[in-house]
């Protein structure tokens, strides 16, 4: 069946980003191999987008809205088991492709990431990098995983492999950082545009200008500290939301206990008497 992405994403809390929970939901599980060595692994997320996400709600009663597929012919919402995948060959004409047919197109690859070669990490033009993930060893694979990670570190190499995830095949680079294997999907060469015409005329470069810039660069050189930069826009939105929350309670909440609301005086008195007796025992 066509799998939807889980909506189990944790929204940014209105508190510091540090206490955000990470869930290690496995995106894919299978085997990574190089030559005859096969390592059972799971693929997990390496990045969690920080963008503040909102939910669409029904304006009348604030119930959440759901995305569903609607059939215009029958005029109704259809369930997951009534949905199939089709490729449009001509306007209104479709070839239906089933999940099994899709998976059979690359049978070798749907459960295996086969490293076909190793290459110097620095040789990979960074424009090729697409999306990063972590590989985590499954039970029994910890030793082989550690080995691969360590030998890649020692040699400064990355593994190049292919694998099929969902409906797409990816070309990937696997590199080792701090004992953990990162898998980064790569763009295919036909997807990378050319910048051949963008460079200016091959004029002689002004040596003086270049020297001056180099001097400035050296003065401004430091170590890379990614923590220095924070998403200002996100910060402003969070501040705005916090302010709104203070001004107006979130919907669905009952009347808040704003004033020192007390119940009927005699009830309160009776309760306090009982409370005092209970406390004496403890």
């Amino acid at each position, binding site marked *: 069946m066509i799998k939807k992405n889980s909506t189990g994403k944790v929204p940014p809390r209105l508190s510091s980003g540090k206490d955000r929970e990470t869930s290690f939901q496995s995106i894919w599980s299978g085997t990574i191999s190089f030559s005859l060595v*096969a390592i059972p692994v799971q693929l997990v997320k390496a990045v969690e987008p*920080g963008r503040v996400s909102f939910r669409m*709600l029904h*304006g009348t009663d604030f119930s959440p809205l759901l995305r569903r597929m609607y059939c215009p012919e029958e005029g109704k919402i259809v369930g997951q088991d009534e949905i199939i*995948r089709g490729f449009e060959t001509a306007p209104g004409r479709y070839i239906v492709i089933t999940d099994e047919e899709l998976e059979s197109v690359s049978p070798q690859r749907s459960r*295996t990431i086969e490293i076909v070669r190793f290459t110097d990490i620095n040789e990979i033009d960074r424009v090729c990098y697409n999306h990063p993930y972590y590989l985590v060893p499954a039970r029994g694979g910890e030793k082989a995983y550690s080995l691969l990670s360590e030998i890649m570190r020692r040699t400064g190499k990355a593994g190049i492999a292919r694998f099929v995830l969902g409906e797409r095949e990816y070309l990937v680079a696997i590199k080792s950082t701090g004992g953990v294997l990162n898998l980064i999907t790569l763009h295919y060469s036909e997807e990378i545009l050319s910048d051949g015409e963008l460079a200016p005329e091959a004029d002689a470069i002004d040596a003086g200008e270049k020297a001056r810039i180099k001097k400035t660069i050296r003065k401004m*050189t430091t170590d890379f500290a990614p923590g220095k930069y924070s998403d200002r826009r996100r910060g402003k939105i969070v501040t705005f939301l916090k302010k709104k929350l203070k001004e107006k309670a979130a919907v669905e909440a009952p009347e808040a206990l704003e004033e020192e609301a007390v119940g009927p005086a005699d009830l309160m008195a009776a309760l306090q008497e009982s409370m005092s007796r209970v406390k004496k025992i403890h």
Partner: protein
Amino acid sequence: MGGAIWKGYIRFNGTNTAVKLHPAVREEQVRFHLLHKRDHARLHQQMICAYDHKPVPAEAQVRGFEVEEGRYIIVEQSELEDAAQETGRTPENSRAIEVHEFVGVAQIDPIFLERAYFLEPADKGKEYNALAAAMKETDSAGICTWTMRKRTYSGALYPAGRTIRLYTLRYADEIIEAGSLGLDEMALSEKELSIGVELISRLTAPFKPEEFENEHHRKLRDLIEKKSRGEKIALLRPVRLKPTMPDRLLQTLEASLKKVA
């Protein structure tokens, strides 16, 4: 090369280099549509109310931020945009790609790289050339921030041949720490490690992206064509490899070495 998507200028310490941004990547995909099984009608996405399952038109939809389960703060798109506005932005500095520092190119782990842009000089290119050459010769990347279409970005400028490229960087708190995965280091023998290293060297080859065609893409198109001609599709079961057990790791490495020799 199509038109530029944005114009700005690289600024640091008195240097102003006017540039045009072009996306560096265009993704291709075989696109499928979702159809109704019964009548092959093309399905549309609809927002329905979770409570009564009736479709809700756009005018009746509001945007909410979930503070805790089932409780939301309602926000208008316009007040959100106002709040997110960059203050103190004048037309002059609104297009600045402000460089704050330089770092060695190798220091930035690819996990930080998000989206790539090619930069084209917006004028004759004198400063651009000098900057590109200076960055290349010092092997430096410029860490910068800029605002494009109401979004602020953090990024890195890299030298590439004679051109300069700009990559947006992920924020540090968007990266899940490798340490949080809780992986333990396993004890490995020097023998296993040295054979492993040798194996890698034998399997090392230059990486030429052009060698790798999107085969799956091609096979998918073949499949679609076959089906449209009414041919039968042989269904193959996905192959699962047997994992290498820890006590057989050394043997497997040795056998691999023999195989590639």
